[in-house]
């Protein structure tokens, strides 16, 4: 039988991660906490690592962080390890169920394309006013979730309308990351890997609703559209948090977050 975990979220965390609505969609797994919550929702604005550590020190079995800003998470990682607490990051695109580590088909398509890549092109769309570095962290998180090792990243241009970042993957294959700020288009992140004879495309939706991701592959054999699910990144994240807590296994979110931070740090060199 599924163990119900109690949840507490302050108003900022609730807004950042649509926590109330998500928890309501997982009524067997989660319920509201009267006191001493099992899981604490933390908003990812500045100081989130401290708030997460506090929650763990206060006895939380798990912490779910919504849209975390770039912040050194070494202390949090240590605290979580010592308390055997689970820390899960709710990232708007990287958290999509299509990119779940267990989704072998999607990762297989991406891996096959990477092995024959001639260009990796990614575009992130977000609302005007979005912080570019926060957006770039979300875009990097998608690459990290896809096990794509990018190096030599550098900012080509950045202004109030978006940015362009260049880099390379194995074999010197060019990488182009772009962000575009507009209210005319849905907030999606796309990843296109062009190969010598085809392509792989992943389009990740805004987690505001349960739009499914789109995953297509084109090879000499034909075109394939992989099955994807109508589930938001938020809901996937909370399900994942429950699974880790119930199984007493650690999540690798903070390790992946550290990789994102190292990519961001390359921009400043």
């Amino acid at each position, binding site marked *: 039988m599924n163990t119900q975990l109690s949840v507490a979220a302050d108003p900022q965390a609730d807004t950042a991660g649509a926590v109330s609505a998500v928890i309501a969609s997982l009524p067997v797994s989660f319920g509201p906490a009267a006191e001493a919550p099992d899981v604490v929702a933390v908003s990812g604005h500045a100081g989130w690592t401290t708030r997460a550590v506090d929650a763990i020190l206060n006895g939380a079995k798990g912490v779910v962080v919504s849209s975390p800003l770039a912040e050194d998470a070494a202390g949090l990682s240590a605290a979580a390890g010592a308390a055997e607490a689970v820390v899960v990051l709710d990232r708007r695109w990287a958290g999509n169920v299509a990119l779940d580590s267990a989704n072998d088909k999607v990762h297989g398509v991406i891996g096959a394309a990477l092995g024959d890549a001639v*260009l990796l092109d990614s575009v992130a769309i977000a609302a005007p006013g979005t912080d570019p570095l926060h957006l770039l962290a979300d875009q990097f998180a998608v690459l990290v979730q896809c096990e794509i090792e990018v190096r030599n990243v550098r900012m080509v241009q950045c202004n109030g309308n978006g940015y362009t970042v260049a880099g390379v993957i194995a*074999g010197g294959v060019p990488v182009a990351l772009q962000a575009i700020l507009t209210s005319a288009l849905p907030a999606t992140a796309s990843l296109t890997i062009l190969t010598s004879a085809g392509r792989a495309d992943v389009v990740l939706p805004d987690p505001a609703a349960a739009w499914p991701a789109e995953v297509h592959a*084109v090879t000499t054999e034909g075109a394939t559209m992989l099955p994807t699910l109508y589930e938001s990144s938020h809901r996937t994240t909370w399900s994942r948090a429950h699974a880790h807590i119930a199984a007493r296994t650690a999540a690798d979110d903070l390790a992946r977050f550290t990789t994102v931070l190292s990519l961001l740090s390359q921009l400043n060199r």
Partner: protein
Amino acid sequence: MSSQADGSPALVGVGILGAGPVTQAIHLPSLARLGHLLEVRHIMDVDPLVAEAVASRVGANFSTSMEELLADPAVDVVAICSPHQFHAAQVIASCRAGKKAVLCEKPFAMSGEEAAGISAVSAETGVPIIVGAMHTFDPGWLGAEEAWGDLPGQVHTVRSSIVLPPNPRFEDFATEIVGRVPMQARDITDPEVMKAMMTGGVMGLAIHDLPLVRRFTPDFAAVEVLHAEIVAPFGYVISLRAGNVAIELRAAMNGTWEPSWEFEAIGDDAALKIDFTPSYVHAGSATARIRTAGKTTVLGPFGHNGYEGEWRKLAELASGRGTPPSAETLLHDLEFALAIAQAAAGRIEKGSIETGRNDSGPVNEEQEISA
């Protein structure tokens, strides 16, 4: 089939300089769809066998010199489909020969000086000139242009993304080519080859969309290339800025069977996306989508593509109707393309790019050009 002798006076007579794959696979099939307006009457090519073979397909005269074609009174409109370096001189000669209109394949000149010379002759002779930037004649683009309202004033980001197979594949879908020149293998790790590829990429491939890009970049003269890389086996990644507009150009000519040709112009509150059909084959027009929050307007697809649109426009101009593109527009389009090509190649000269894959094989010369 018809010939000069029995050509109907109601039809506009066409002469074509250069009978290579672009003429064979693009213009002749387009003209064959417009037999009620236009008639091919003279084909010139420096290779007499190619000239004769291609001319015989349409019952036209043939020759091996530009002078012969220009002297043919049955030719009302001249299409210049020769190698780039001959374009300017042939446009000028065609105008001076008193023809009714000239179509010049892009680019219509290879320097600002050549372009200025063409502009002066066009003004002097009054002969209208069209440059074969087919996307600007595509009904999908033209429909978007009528519908986009204040979009150009708010666009801050432009993207052109092109994924195509090598040209011969689509040429062979459009016609049966004669006289195809064998490909020359080369080492794309050689900086000089890379520089030539970048120039060829801009002037042979990106140039299709650069007039569209320029519609959204009022400060086009201030264009600055920020980043440029070669994509194997042929293609590019170029990042530019022109005033407040960020421009991203992507292209790859790989072995795909699924071509993709997208153009996007995005502002704060509205965005345009156009999906163009591949070159050569007659697969109808582009489809344009204009989006605002919660609303999408779809224009197209329409029944003909930009190549056919070019010829419809030429027939109109040769009949004394319609308005040609302004010489200033053509000049600025060319200056824009030349500035980008030179600066992008310069990024390679400076060694300031990340090179493409070092394990890439040789590339074919013809992969550079996609009409």
